Structure formats: C-alpha cells, structure tokens
C-alpha cells in the first residue's frame, strides 16, 4: 500500500533516495535523457510514493540534473542552441495536448503503443 493510500508520510530513506538520484544522473548525463524513466519506478518501489507523486517529484529533480548535464555538454560545444529553442517551443505546446489526450485513453493500450514505437526507434538506431 502506498503512503498516500495509507494516509501516512512517505519515508525519506536518504541512502536509497540518493542512490536513485545517482543512478538516474549517470543515465541522464550518459544518454542525454531526463532520467525520469529510472527515478519514477525507483521512488515507487523504494519510497512508496504513488505513481503521480513519483512523476511530479521526478520532474523537480530532473531540473537540476539536466542543467548540470547540459552544462557539461555546453563546455564541450555539444549543444545546438537554435535547435534547442525550436524543440522546446514545440514541446511546450505539445505537452498540454498530450495531457488532454491522456485523460481520454486506456493506459494499457498507451503503454503497448509506446513500447512498440520505442522498439522500432531502437532498431533504427542499432541497425543504422
């Protein structure tokens, strides 16, 4: 049972929470992703946060994590700022649209579709 359902405060468990951050940060810097895919399930499993709490908390942690990673790539000259501006602008328009659709779709079907999409993209990368 999650902390929210039991009405209690979720435990802090500093060593596990720090380790979750370390693992997510490594993946984030190495692969250029936010790390939420690692943080969200670990906060659910170790800390007992609900899926929604983990998702929201993960976003807050990703802000400094991605900032540090981006700064390291910036030092190397590995950022295209024009491209980043366009992607961010598009993404900020798309996010509320996705949230609107989310409220109207089946979770299992979404997962299946996303899983298949990701598999197709990974095959492209591995075979390219």
């Amino acid at each position, binding site marked *: 049972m999650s902390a929210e359902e039991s009405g209690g405060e979720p435990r802090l468990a500093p060593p596990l929470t720090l380790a979750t951050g370390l693992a997510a940060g490594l993946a984030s810097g190495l692969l250029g992703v936010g790390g939420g895919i690692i943080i969200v399930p670990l906060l659910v499993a170790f800390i007992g946060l609900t899926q929604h709490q983990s998702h929201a908390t993960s976003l*807050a942690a990703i802000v400094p994590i991605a900032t540090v990673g981006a700064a390291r*790539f910036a030092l190397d000259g590995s950022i295209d700022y024009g491209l980043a501006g366009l992607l*961010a602008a598009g993404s900020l328009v798309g996010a509320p649209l996705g949230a609107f659709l989310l409220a109207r779709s089946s979770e299992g079907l979404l997962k299946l579709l996303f899983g298949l999409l990701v598999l197709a*993209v990974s095959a492209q990368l591995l075979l390219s």
Partner: protein
Amino acid sequence: MTAQTVLLVLAAGVLVGVLSSLFGVGGGLLMVPFMVLVLNETQHLAEGTSLLVIVPTAIVGVIAHLRNHFVSFRHALLVAIGGIGGAYLGADIALRIDPVTLTKVFGVFLAAIGIRTTYEGVKSLRA
C-alpha cells in the same frame, strides 16, 4: 537552418511534447533519436541539446503539478543531490565515448525500455 527544417523541428517538438506527457516519459528518449536519425546530428550534440530542452520542459511540468501537491520536495532534493554528481560524471563519460558507439549504447537502453513497456502494456490489457 532552412525554413523547411525549422518547421520540421517545431513539428517534432510538438509531437515530443504530446508523446511525453501522454506516455509519462521525458522527451529525451525520442528527441535524441530524432536529432540523430532525421537531422543527422552527432550523438554528442543530440544529447547536449536534448538535456537543454528538458530543463524548461521539466520546470513547466513542476509548475503544473504544484497545485495538486504531488511534488515531494524533500525527496526531489535528495534525488537531485545524488543526480547532480551522477549527471556530471555521466556526461563526462559520454563525451569520452566515440559518438557512433554511444548511439549503439543509447539504442540498447531504448530497446530495453521498449521491451519493458510493451510487456507492461500487454499485461495491463489482459488484466
């Protein structure tokens, strides 16, 4: 960038935004392959650019969640402390790896996520 590329990138950004809030993932998983496969950028440039895009996107996400009190700032702080060290180290390792090899590493990571998510989807549909 040509006007055509600008429109393509904006459209890709919208799609990334829709898919990431729809599937509850960050945009990086999709943005990095888009830049590498469609725009022919190097893996290093794609990763650096993706991380920069994630910062404002995540800030907007946090603001959207402030009203429902889902953000546990105590946990976020601890994750961030571990995460900052990991992020610097991870980025440093990435920049030492040859970009073509790094694309394959990314591909393996993505394949693992694809397998897990597909499995969860099938399980959830059967339930």
